[in-house]
């Protein structure tokens, strides 16, 4: 049960960092929704991912944080940005429907989220996470990955192979004469 004493007593380093990174996440997420040009959305998403990496570090998952930055923010989002550039995506126009949705949706979402947050906080138990709780070194993860989760690991490699082939086929320019099997 969250009480005011709990608040004051445990105002700690962990919490401050958590709140900081959390604020960045929230801001980035909201900005993603608010921006009209996709490139702005992409950039705010990168910010969110970076902040999430910080959260992972707080929890002690170093490897995951690193992979987050390298793969997610560094590769996937770069791909997104490239596509935005390639396709010359422009700003979205606001239609009448979207304006109404905005007018109604924003306050609605706000109230809904406050409500949910309040309920969750009231009913949460005393579970807590300590800073750096996880043993997140690559060595530990590798132990699991290559022993217990070996099969899924190999399957994902096949998955990536298929994804590559699919992406290449789908994105390639169609031949001049249709119907010719390549």
């Amino acid at each position: 049960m969250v009480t005011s004493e709990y608040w004051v007593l445990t105002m700690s380093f962990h919490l401050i960092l958590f709140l900081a990174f959390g604020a960045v996440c929230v801001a980035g997420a909201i900005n993603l929704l608010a921006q009209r040009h996709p490139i702005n959305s992409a950039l705010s998403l990168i910010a969110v991912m970076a902040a999430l990496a910080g959260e992972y570090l707080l929890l002690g998952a170093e490897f995951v944080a690193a992979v987050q930055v390298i793969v997610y923010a560094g590769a996937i989002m770069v791909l997104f940005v490239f596509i935005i550039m390639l396709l010359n995506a422009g700003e979205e126009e606001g239609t009448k429907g979207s304006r109404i949705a905005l007018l109604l949706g924003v306050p609605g979402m706000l109230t809904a989220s406050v409500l949910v947050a309040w309920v969750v906080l009231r009913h949460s138990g005393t579970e807590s996470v300590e800073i750096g709780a996880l043993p997140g070194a690559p060595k530990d993860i590798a132990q699991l990955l290559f022993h217990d989760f070996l099969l899924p690991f190999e399957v994902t490699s096949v998955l990536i192979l298929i994804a590559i082939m699919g992406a290449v086929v789908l994105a390639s320019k169609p031949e001049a004469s249709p119907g010719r099997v390549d």
Partner: protein
Amino acid sequence: MVASYVPLSYYLLLSGFLFACGVVGFLIKRNIITIFMSIELMLNGVNLSFVAFAAHWHALAGQVFVFFVMVVAAAEAAVGLAIIIAVYRTRETLNVDQVNLLKL
């Protein structure tokens, strides 16, 4: 260092908020790339939730799962963007409302 604790529910709230934003963006946005990005946002929210629970229970498997989620997200992003390129070629638009030939 003094061991300091943050309630698990805070992490879960944050994760839920990110997920919700992803859903809202998926429903609201008309640009297909932005929709895709909302999906990625959703996945990130879920990842946070996984790691938080893994930390709470001191179970490493959570992180491994995050690893797999990322791999799948990467594959999905690659293929999905390729599809977007293919659709853009034929329909000349990124507005999702105009890709509506599959209707009754």
